[in-house]
């Protein structure tokens, strides 16, 4: 962007102003902390209210990533158990879903996705699960999850893949697996190969919008 560009100047000013405002806000909060309701507040450490929407971001660029090398290995292995390569598309780890999960676990926000979620708690579930799955692997098969053979990995995942039927001793791990599968799916299907796999064919300019094709109308009983 050209430095004399009026928009660029506005952006810089806006960012400067954001930083300046942070301290006075804290004071404001204290002023009415006693009798006022805690309305949701501006959160530090994120990308802010006015980030550049055109830029391509990489995990780790805005906030530091916190997974240890051991947790990362388990993450990659789990991603590919959930979304392995098949004849439609490659595996989740081959398109970097593990980096998205790392970015997600490391996010500085009080919630991500839904304001009803509690990110600190959700993050603890993931961290707990990554550690659990390695200890369970060692207990059952004497090696980390990432080093197990496929049948051993499946033996563990079969016990935790569905919260509704998981045995009591696996309930907590099943909650983890469910959350982790959501993250893997969300991370994978938002990539170009994931979008193609799931059958999304939009995001391209069209000369006209013709509605559903005849074969769709027929299938729906609308033809």
């Amino acid at each position, binding site marked *: 962007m050209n430095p004399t560009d009026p928009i660029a100047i506005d952006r810089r000013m806006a960012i400067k102003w954001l930083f300046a*405002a942070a301290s006075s806000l804290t004071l*404001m909060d204290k002023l*009415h902390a006693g009798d006022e309701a805690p309305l949701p507040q501006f959160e530090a450490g994120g990308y802010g209210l006015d980030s550049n929407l055109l830029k391509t971001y990489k995990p780790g660029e805005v906030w530091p990533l916190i997974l240890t090398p051991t947790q990362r290995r388990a993450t990659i292995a789990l991603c590919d158990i959930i979304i392995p390569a098949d004849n439609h598309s490659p595996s989740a780890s081959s398109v970097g879903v593990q980096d998205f999960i790392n970015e997600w676990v490391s996010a500085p926000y009080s919630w991500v996705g839904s*304001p009803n979620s509690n990110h600190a708690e959700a993050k603890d579930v993931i961290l707990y699960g990554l550690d659990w799955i390695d200890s369970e692997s060692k207990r059952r098969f004497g090696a980390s999850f990432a080093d197990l053979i496929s049948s051993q990995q499946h033996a563990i995942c079969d016990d935790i893949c569905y919260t509704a039927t998981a045995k009591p001793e696996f309930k907590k791990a099943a909650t983890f697996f469910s959350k982790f*599968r959501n993250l893997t799916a*969300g991370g994978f299907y938002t990539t170009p190969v994931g979008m193609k796999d*799931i059958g999304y064919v*939009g995001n*391209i300019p069209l000369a006209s919008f013709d*509605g559903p094709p005849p074969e769709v109308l027929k299938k729906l009983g609308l033809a």
Partner: protein
Amino acid sequence: MPIITASKTQPSYDVIVVGSGAAGGQTAYTLTMEGAKVLMLEAGRSYDPVRETPMFNTPDQAPLRGSNTPDKYFGYYDSTASGGWDIPGEPYTSASNEIEKQFWWWRARMLGGRSNHWGRISLRNGNYDFKPKSRDGLGFDWPLNYEDVAPYYDKVEMLIGVYGTNEGLENTPNSSPGVLLPAPKLRANELLAQKHAKKIGVPVIPIHRAVLSTKQDADNVPQKLHPKNAKAQRILAQAMRERSACFWATDCGRGCSIKANYQSTTVHLPPALATGNLDIVTNAMVREVTLDDNGKATGVICIDKTTGTLHHFKARVVVLAPSSAESVRILLNSKSARFPQGVANSSGLVGKYIMDTVGGGLGGQVPLLESLPLHNEDGAGGSHAYVPWWLYQEQKAGKLDFPRGYHIEFGGGRMMPNSNTATNIDRFTQGSYGKEFKADARRYYGSMVGFAGRGEMIPNDDSFCELDPTVKDKWGTPVLKFHWKWSDYELKQVEHMQRTFTAILESMGGKASRPVAPGIKNIEPGGKIIHEVGGTIMGTTARNSVTNQWGQTWDVKNLFITDGGPFVSNADKNPTLTIMALAWRASDYILGELSRGNI
């Protein structure tokens, strides 16, 4: 976008317009096209959708796959810049600790305001909506009729470009012939709902949205909108030619770099600027309206947010259009010996009767929509169909346990995947993973349908805002404190909504994701639908209202309000189109009064 600094402004203007969104944009457009010299003051930064809109960006290019966060409540690619529920240094407070008594206030601190991200749903109020009290005894009647506003609905729709159809349904007005652009074809889930909801008496019809389904008729529309004004016709024709028709991709909430949808920054401001009659100062936060010894408005005092310096801008007329609650704040902060309770507040009604839209929702899964042949459903970047309120007769016959209506908006289809895609489908898949999960993801993608009810709230004495006695913003200006309360009317309505959604889903062979929840559990918080109106209600006398039917304050004849503040009811119809129609009407009145020397 040519924006000037405070030091480059003229010593005086015909009109100062505070705010640059739908209300401020329409007001400045009408005034400048007819020759008035206008200064527009925007509290946020400059913003240019042509250069800043992430049109084809995909979620994997954004932090957290574009997920919603406290910084970007509606997702990373939502166009809102420097805005949200909470803005550093610009707090507001709530009188209650109870969640259901809190009000959420969305502010977009950017040129064009909330018009950049809005849903573009453009529904007209009907006859009933302007005379609600006469029909059921609740709330207030407006001091005008549908017939007073109808010509302005036509004008606004022709100017901004609205697609849709005329269905001739009760209290769902037709536009004049030739006004609407063609409605896009319905998507698979919309067609399926249309076919099956009919069996239970629920009409699914094409929605009206401010998106160009075709190019506008630049050869003929300008002379209809500006008869006998060659300059305005020429400028508008040029502006219309610079807008492209929708290319059936990308979500409208991101904004539109090809100007295919309405946002103030692409539709109202370019022609207004082309007249040479408009100056815009951004980062200019208005604090108060100034008066002369005779009680006439002389201008406004505003804070340059980048430097903290105060400026006094002057004009013959002041128009407030910064959003209904912000107008209240400015009026209450404009205290003087003549107006110790705030300017234009001799009635004591400034801040009273604030309303939002009643929001309820429920979704479900429809097996018929599983594994459909691949096809592109992006469409017009928003819904193509909706259900207008359809139970007027049942309500009149006393068969419903709540007053007023709601319309139904749809979500679903084979939209661009986001971070929620293929999540929480265990209940259908029994926890599949691996290749089986990938097959399940393909099967269930596009088979979820969501319904959102948008209903009318009855104004009540417990929902209002006032100045907080202690809390100030970072420039030392007192902030608003909100009081909020839903009544049984709204809670019963939200329960009815959910029963309807369940019935529609079942008619389609689907199943709701959960049972009907009590109203208080399902209703969205006050303010959350971002349709807040009222607070400076219009009426027939200086005792029962703040303004007359033209948004002219009773107390100060050259002070006007053209945002949603003067609304005395909040029909289920989304308020933006009516705000623009009334702003155009008020601006015509201002031009007349200026030329007659009355203000």
